[in-house]
């Protein structure tokens, strides 16, 4: 049993009411019964006794009259007749006296008993003298003696008896009057009590019950109804405030907890939403960077291609030079052979030879320089390949970042889904609370029905009181009739009986009033039944509401599921791209290796060329020696020939190397083409991702709209403003990237609209907020927002118009991003 339960309260109220009515009824009933008893006593004893005394008096006078008549009568028959009559009357008087004396001897007081005994004694004397003396005298004809006795002592005795009888009547009447005085007092008290009891019931019980009904039923139910209405409209910023510890209070606490849970979820969802928005922006940015990387890659590839072609050309030049060299070598060889064959001609031709050797030397130096050029070209290629490789590594890194973001999104989505499930759970909790209330309301209905039944029983009891009053009225009426018929003796009776009749009529009036009050209470009970019915309807509405809330939460869960899928797709695509760029990197490594090999070969060629140069120098020295000792030279011409053969061999080696180089150049070209194709594919992937990001943005917008349905109080509204500022930021970034003048104008226009909306909303929020803390936050937010706006309008937009895109970007991503972060931090600290 808990005192604050509504059921218990109603029971207690009902018990108190029953107790009041019961006590009143009991006192009324017992008092009326007492009065009735007084009346009955008066009627049964005193009035009857008084009537008996009167009758006795009449009989006594009758006896005396008969005796006197008998005295005067001469006829014996008639005397006998009189005598018989006297005897009959005497017997009646005796009977009555005995009866009278014996029957009520206990209830009478001593004085009255003495009176009756006295009367009896006198009567016995009277009778004895009459029977023993007077009647025999009459029969004997001694009329004179009889008369003397009759008018003498008998007359005195008669007078004494009459006096005693009168005194008795008076005493009875006095007793009756006392009784009536008591009953009158009792009646007065009864009526006073009736009025006081009615007043107590009316003044204490009814206001109390009205107050209780109002405080414990109507007001909390109205509050609940208002709150449910607000919840239907999406406003969950207020708590229900019901202090009562009753079931309704418990319900409101459950409801508040559920709403608090919902609020937390929505706030978390909003936080997640902002995080996700950020993540999506980052993805967008990454995609942008990746796209740029792909473009750079493509450009680098073109550079590589150009370098490779140059290399190819140089290689061809080398080959041509080699051919010339070979031809020249062949020419030298034949000359030496000719020299050997016609030793005489040698001498004359030595000068020519020297010139030719000088030419050869120059050619060889040319080759060497060509080779050096080639080497530097290969270095260029190598550097280009390295750059490509670095770019690809960058792409890979950014792809990984994207993947990370995508995975984070999936994680966030999971969290949202979890929170939504918790929300659904808390809504189900609410549902359980509703069920409890429903039970409580039905038990209240049962209690009220019981109350109705009991008040009907009270009506029955009041009817009994009314019947008793009617009965008293009838008795009083009859008492009045009897009293007035008793004449002078009954006058006192008559007055009192009249008063009793009036009192009984007043009792009837007050019972009718009680009946009216009981009817009023029944009416109030009916009202209570009606309001309990209303309560039931409201509980059903609340249930409907909570199931609607469940639907909304399930919708949010569904949306996040779609979002999750999309993030997973992004992650997958990014992975594919990553593997593609790794392949490209591998290919480029292959190219680089080949280039290194080439460089090595060219170095070898260069060394060979140096050797050749040295040999040619030697040849020059030999030629000068030949000039000095032509004959000696003839002998050594075989050595020269063999040297020339060596040289030719070396030249042939170079030629082979050149052709190898050409082949490898072709391979590089093929690889570059492949890389180009891959870069194109990478760009396509970026475009795909861009599309996905835009779809994602649309989803986010839908989500945002769904979330905006909930009103969350001031701070949450400020958070919404922050979202708008974020939107402005992303538009500004888009405007910076945009090259089309018209489109940029459209962006500027939108930014202006959104900014004025933020200004308006912030001013409204500031005016409507009363919490000092919130006002301070909004003021600081406004300050930062004004700085943000100023920088944007005065600097960034000017820079965009002047075409200084890089500077504008630096400002937007630098100080403006910092300010935006400050605004977010300002809110999150407090939330």
């Amino acid at each position: 049993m808990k005192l604050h339960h509504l059921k218990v309260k109603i029971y207690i109220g009902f018990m108190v009411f029953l107790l009041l009515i019961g006590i009143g009824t009991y006192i009324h009933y017992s008092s009326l019964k007492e009065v009735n008893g007084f009346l009955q006593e008066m009627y049964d004893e005193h009035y009857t006794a008084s009537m008996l005394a009167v009758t006795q008096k009449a009989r006594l006078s009758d006896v005396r009259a008969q005796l006197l008549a008998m005295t005067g009568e001469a006829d014996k028959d008639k005397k006998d007749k009189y005598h018989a009559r006297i005897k009959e009357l005497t017997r009646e008087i005796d009977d009555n006296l005995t009866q009278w004396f014996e029957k009520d001897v206990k209830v009478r007081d001593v004085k009255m008993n003495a009176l009756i005994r006295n009367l009896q004694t006198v009567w016995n004397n009277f009778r004895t003298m009459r029977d023993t003396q007077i009647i025999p005298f009459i029969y004997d004809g001694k009329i004179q003696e009889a008369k003397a006795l009759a008018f003498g002592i008998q007359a005195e005795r008669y007078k004494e008896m009459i006096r005693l009888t009168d005194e008795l009547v008076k005493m009875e009447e006095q007793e009756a009057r006392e009784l009536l005085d008591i009953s009158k007092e009792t009646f007065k008290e009864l009526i006073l009590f009736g009025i006081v009891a009615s007043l107590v019931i009316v003044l204490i019980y009814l206001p109390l019950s009205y107050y209780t009904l109002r405080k414990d039923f109507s007001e909390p139910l109205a509050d609940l109804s208002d709150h449910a209405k607000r919840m239907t409209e999406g406003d969950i910023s207020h708590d229900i405030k019901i202090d009562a510890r009753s079931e309704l209070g418990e319900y409101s606490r459950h409801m508040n907890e559920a709403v608090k849970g919902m609020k937390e979820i929505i706030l978390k969802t909003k936080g997640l939403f902002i995080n996700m928005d950020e993540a999506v922006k980052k993805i967008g940015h990454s995609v942008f960077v990746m796209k740029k990387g792909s473009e750079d890659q493509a450009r680098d590839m073109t550079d590589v291609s150009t370098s490779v072609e140059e290399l190819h050309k140089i290689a061809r030049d080398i080959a041509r030079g080699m051919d010339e060299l070979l031809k020249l070598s062949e020419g030298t060889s034949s000359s030496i052979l000719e020299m050997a064959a016609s030793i005489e001609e040698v001498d004359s031709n030595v000068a020519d030879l020297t010139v030719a050797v000088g030419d050869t030397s120059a050619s060889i130096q040319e080759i060497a320089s060509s080779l050096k050029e080639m080497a530097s070209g290969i270095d260029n290629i190598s550097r280009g390949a390295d750059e490509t490789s670095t770019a690809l590594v960058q792409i890979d890194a950014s792809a990984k970042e994207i993947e990370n973001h995508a995975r984070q999104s999936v994680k966030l989505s999971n969290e949202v889904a979890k929170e939504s499930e918790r929300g659904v759970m808390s809504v189900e909790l609410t549902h359980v609370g509703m069920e409890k209330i429903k039970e409580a309301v039905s038990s209240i209905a049962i209690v009220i029905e019981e109350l109705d039944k009991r008040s009907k029983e009270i009506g029955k009891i009041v009817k009994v009181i009314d019947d008793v009053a009617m009965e008293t009225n009838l008795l009083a009426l009859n008492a009045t009739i009897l009293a007035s018929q008793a004449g002078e003796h009954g006058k006192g009776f008559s007055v009192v009986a009249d008063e009793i009749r009036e009192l009984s009529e007043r009792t009837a009036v007050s019972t009718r009033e009680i009946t009216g009050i009981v009817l009023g209470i029944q009416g109030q009970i009916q009202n209570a039944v009606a309001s309990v019915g209303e309560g039931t309807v409201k509980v059903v509405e609340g249930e409907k509401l909570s199931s609607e809330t469940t639907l909304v939460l399930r919708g949010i869960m569904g949306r996040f599921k779609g979002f999750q899928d999309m993030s997973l797709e992004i992650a997958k695509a990014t992975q594919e791209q990553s593997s593609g760029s790794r392949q490209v990197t591998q290919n480029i490594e292959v190219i680089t290796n080949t280039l290194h090999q080439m460089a090595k070969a060219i170095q070898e060629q260069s060394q060979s060329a140096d050797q050749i140069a040295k040999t040619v120098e030697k040849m020059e020295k030999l030629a000068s020696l030949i000039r000095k000792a032509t004959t000696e030279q003839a002998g050594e011409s075989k050595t020269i020939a063999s040297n020339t053969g060596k040289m030719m061999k070396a030249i042939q080696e170079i030629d082979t190397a050149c052709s190898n180089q050409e082949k490898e150049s072709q391979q590089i070209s093929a690889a570059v083409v492949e890389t180009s194709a891959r870069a194109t594919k990478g760009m396509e992937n970026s475009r795909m991702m861009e599309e996905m990001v835009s779809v994602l943005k649309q989803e986010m917008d839908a989500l945002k709209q769904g979330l905006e349905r909930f009103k969350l109080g001031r701070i949450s509204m400020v958070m919404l403003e922050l979202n708008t500022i974020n939107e402005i930021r992303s538009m500004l970034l888009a405007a910076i990237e945009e090259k089309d003048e018209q489109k940029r104008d459209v962006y500027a226009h939108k930014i202006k609209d959104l900014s004025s909306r933020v200004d308006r909303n912030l001013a409204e929020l500031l005016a409507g907020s009363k919490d000092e803390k919130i006002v301070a936050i909004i003021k600081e937010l406004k300050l930062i927002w004004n700085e943000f706006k100023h920088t944007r309008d005065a600097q960034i937009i000017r820079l965009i118009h002047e075409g200084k895109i890089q500077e504008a970007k630096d400002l937007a991503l630098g100080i403006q991003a910092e300010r935006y972060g400050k605004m977010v931090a300002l809110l999150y600290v407090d939330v």
Partner: protein
Amino acid sequence: MVSSSQIQKKAMERAAVRDINTHGDIQLICFKLGAEAYGLDIMQIKEIIRHQKITVVPKAPCFIDGVINLRGMVIPIIDLRKRFELQASGHLRNRIIIADVENRIVGLVVDDVTDIISVSKTNLLPPPKMIKGTEATYLGGMIDIEGGFLFIIDLDKMLTAEEKGSLDVPLEK
């Protein structure tokens, strides 16, 4: 059982008391039949009881509705509504006035007994002249009361000699 001699004695005594009262006021029992109020001299009344079941007696005189048993006494009942040729309306006949008509005890069915009043004889008015026939004989007079007239009924004159005679036949159970 009260013996007849005792009843006779009481009647004599009452008559004596009535003679004393003749000089001053008379007391009237007021009762209602429908909306009209009537009065009876209190000296003719023995008591007033609740309405109870009336036993119909076969071949009883037509002015008698039936009999009731009052503490062992068989008392003939006269319905005053029928007697006064009033329409039987929805009012309850919830009282019976036990009256003494020249030493004959009869019960009169009325709607309700409302009051007992004392009236000075000088305030008595003669019955209206337009009433003629038997009705005029038993209207002893009338009194101006609040909201109309109270008709005083003389019970001794209400019953004809023939009816009184038929009441002398004992209606023992």
